[in-house]
Structure formats: structure tokens, C-alpha cells
């Protein structure tokens, strides 16, 4: 357990992935006889060790949090497109909301490999949902700023408010936001005014993960989260984010 209701699990794959996962790609984790759930890839090592970080939400994650070492799970993936890192990115801001922190270690590692400076802004509801980020990062972000909604730790306010108060958006080559949809919407709407089109990594219900069932369609667009995402430009998903109220 990393924090209240938040867990880290290291999984040993029977067969390593065919290709190294890109940041924001995900896997379907099958808890045998219980459920199959989409989960971000937090870290992956080439010998087949997969790290996931998750929050307990329902029966599937509850079971996953309680099973012991040596249990067998099913893993499908890596799924989705992932974020293609552009060579012109020299400095990138990552805004993570709550469990949106899960895919950031893989993202920071990939950006670091590309020689890109990474600034992480992480917001949670309250102090008990925070944990020591050293426990999940292989490559450390160059700057870390933290906020809590209730002010119990760090900056008081949302991660977007934190970002706006301590950083200048124009000093970054890219902004990547990861978290719940209302947060992503707020980020997109704020940046829209500044004529910036950030990248957002979205979460939704994924069932088949292969573009067949259509459960994860993006409203007002022909895109499917599971095969075209989960990373999109704000401009591609704005209608979707606004229609979720």
C-alpha cells in the first residue's frame, strides 16, 4: 500500500511484451473469476516486470489489492497508442490529478531518455492520498510540486491552480494532463484561452480494448479511446469532456 486505498503491484509476465510500452499505454488486468480492468502501465523492465499503481474502487481492484504474492493474473497489452515524444520538446509540464499519477513514471522515463526536462505537478484531494514519489519513479522528475484540495499538504487548491500559481505555461514545449475528466476539462478550457492545445490522458470504461465493442467511444468524434488513445489533444476531446456532466 502506498497511501490510503492506493496500491502498487509488481507483476512478472510469463512472456515479456513484444515491444516496449509507450507512455500512457495500458493493459487489461484480469483477476481470475472476478473482473478484467484497464490499468495504466507505471513502469516496465525488459525482462518482463510490469508495475501498476491503482486505487481501490470496486470489487476487481479490491480483490487485486488483497491477493497475495505468487497469485496468477491475466494481462493483455500493451494496448492503446501511447504518447509519441517529439524531438523538439525540451521541457514538458505534467499535471497529474489523484491516481492520474499512475502512468507518470513511464512518461518521465521516456521524456528523460529523450533529453527532455520534466516538471511534475501532482494534486490530490487530501494528504492521506499522497505518498513518497520515490517509491514509483525510476527516473525522477526535475521538479515536483504538490497540491491538496483541502490544503492539508503543499499548495491549497487544484493541480491546475497550483500550476498557474507557480509555473509559466509558456515556458514549456508541451503540457500533458492526466487525471479524472473534470480536471482534464478544466485544464483544456483554461489552456484554450491561451491558445494552447495540451495533451490529455483520459480514463474511461474499456471493455474489449481492441476497437470492437465501442464502449470507450469519444463523443462527437470517430475516435475510440482504446485504440486511438488514451492520449488525445484537448481539441479532439473537448466536446466529449463537456458532454459528460
Amino acid at each position: 500500500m502506498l497511501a490510503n486505498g492506493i496500491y502498487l503491484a509488481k507483476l512478472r509476465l510469463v512472456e515479456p511484451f513484444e515491444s516496449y510500452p509507450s507512455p500512457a499505454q495500458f493493459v487489461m488486468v484480469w483477476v481470475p473469476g472476478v473482473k478484467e480492468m484497464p490499468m495504466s502501465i507505471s513502469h516496465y523492465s525488459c525482462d518482463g516486470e510490469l508495475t501498476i499503481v491503482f486505487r481501490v474502487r470496486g470489487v476487481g481492484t479490491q480483490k487485486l489489492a488483497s491477493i497475495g504474492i505468487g497469485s496468477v493474473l491475466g494481462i493483455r497489452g500493451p494496448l492503446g497508442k501511447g504518447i509519441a515524444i517529439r524531438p523538439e520538446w525540451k521541457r514538458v509540464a505534467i499535471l497529474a490529478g489523484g491516481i492520474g499519477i499512475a502512468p507518470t513514471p513511464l512518461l518521465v522515463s521516456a521524456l528523460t531518455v529523450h533529453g527532455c526536462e520534466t516538471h511534475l505537478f501532482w494534486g490530490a484531494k487530501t494528504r492521506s492520498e499522497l505518498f513518497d514519489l520515490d517509491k514509483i519513479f525510476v527516473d525522477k522528475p526535475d521538479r515536483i510540486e504538490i497540491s491538496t484540495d483541502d490544503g492539508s499538504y503543499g499548495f491549497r487548491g487544484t493541480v491546475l491552480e497550483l500550476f498557474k500559481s507557480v509555473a509559466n505555461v509558456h515556458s514549456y514545449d508541451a503540457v500533458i494532463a492526466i487525471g479524472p475528466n473534470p480536471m482534464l476539462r478544466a485544464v483544456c478550457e483554461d489552456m484554450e484561452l491561451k491558445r494552447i492545445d495540451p495533451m490529455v490522458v483520459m480514463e474511461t470504461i474499456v471493455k474489449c480494448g481492441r476497437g470492437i465493442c465501442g464502449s470507450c467511444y469519444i463523443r462527437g468524434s470517430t475516435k475510440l479511446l482504446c485504440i486511438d488513445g488514451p492520449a488525445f489533444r484537448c481539441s479532439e476531446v473537448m466536446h466529449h469532456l463537456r458532454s459528460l456532466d
Partner: protein
Amino acid sequence: MVSKLSVRVAGLHLEHPVMNASGILGATPEHIERLASYGFSAIVTKTITPQPREGNPPPIIVEIPNIGLLNAVGLANPGKNIVPKLVEVSKRLGKPIVISVGGSTPSEFLEVASIAEEAGADAIELNLSCPHAKGYGIEIGSDPYQSYEVVKTVANSVKIPTIAKLGLCDRIVEVASKVLEAGAKGLTLINTVRAMVIDVMTARPVLSNVFGGLSGPAIHPIAVRVVYEVYRELRPEIIGCGGVVDWVTAAELILAGARAVQVGTALMWKENIVYDVLIGLRRLIEHFGVRSIEDLVGYSHRV
């Protein structure tokens, strides 16, 4: 001039013979738009039932390398009220639309079919063959008399063409004969085949529903056989479905007797499959020195 690839099937005039198979997307206007972008000549919706259905909880699919895909989506769909919206977007895109209709009784089928007709759909495809939803699909479609009742109820009441989608069962020729007698203008052959996968490390069936429908390369020779046999016995208008992954697998179904084909599973691997199939079929027309693809329908029965 009519293109070499255009076909008529069950009252539909198609610019080419490649449609999507029901069950691939097709439940929201956004899905329809995506299917249209794949280049299909007609759009077949996901099976729509009168009331919305949640479908099964995941795992709902298992990919089996080199064999295909096992799915048990469980007829998830938003219910009949979505039909006019699906028709509208398809019309805007200039594509004929076939509403796949599901139900557990003849009157449920009719309920959705009537809305489809009213909304301006081009045809309906009755799902008499889904193998993974209790009380639906193949549980009706493997019985010639229940199938007859469903098709008759619908075909007697709606004027747009009724297509019956049948699945693998021992009495397939008999079922086909009965549904044609009941007024079906065409048959879609075949649906996925009931199958299962067990995870050996935990000894558990993988799908939450235990059983699912197998699609993809594994069922293609079965589909070819069923199309061939039903064509030989009854000469109906057939839409071939099952394991079309390239132009060769599409051509086999046509030579066996299908006037059009449907593609599903292959989209997982190849989003531009439609063009691949069409280029190959055009070459096959030249190879046999015939005028159009329609001359090759059931050609294997004439050589």
C-alpha cells in the same frame, strides 16, 4: 456505367460487396461514422434490442493468436430509441444502413424492425444466431419453427427487406429453407461459433460468460462450407460472413455463393482491409474474364 464491383443483394444496391459484420461498433452515431470511414459499402449496426442492454462484464474478449477472437459482449446496446439517430448519420454519409435486430420473442423483433423501417433504414438483419446471450440469437435460430415465426412476423409487417442472419447448427439448410419461406429476402451466413477458452494457470474459463462466439480465420472454412451448401440446395441471396481477412477469403465466400461479404474481426489487425479486398476482387474478375463480380457469385458450382 455500373462498376464491375457493384452488387445487388436482398434489395440493396451496393457499390461493392464489402460490408461490416454486425457487432463491430455500430451502436452510436460516432460508431457509424467510423465504420463509414473504413470504406464499407453498407453499414450494419450492432444488434439493437427493444430495451437497452448492459452486456456482459469484462473479460468479454480473448484473442487467440492465428485463430481469431472469442467474444461474449452479450448484445450490449442502447435500445431501440437509438435507431433513428443511426439511420440519420448513415444517410448523411450516403451509406445504406442495415439495422441488426435482436429480440427474445417475435414481437420484440418486430418492435425494433418497425422503428427501423419508419426511420428509413434500407434493410433489417434479424439476429437469429448470437451464441452468447441467453434467450436470444442461436437459441431461437437453431430451431426452424421458431426462426420461421420470427421472420414471418417481421417480413409480413415491414416493407424493407428482411435478412436473416443464421449461425452454425446441424439443421442449417432446414432453417435457411424455413426463413426463406417465411419471407426473408436474403441470408447472412454465418455468425460466430460458440466456443470457449480456459486459462491453464488458474483452470478458469476466461470469459465472464464462460462461452463466447469464435470469429476470425478459424471459422472461415466453416462459413465457406455453409454458404456453399445452402447455395447449392436453395439458391438464395447470401451475404457471406466469417473469417474474411483478405481478398482471398472474401473471394472464397463469393465463389461459394455469397453476393456480398461482411468483415468483422480482421478490422482489429487491418483497418484498410476493404481496399485490400476490392483490389484483389478486381484482379479475380480479370483472371476469370468475366464482366463483373456478380458473374462470380456461386462460380464454384458451375466449374
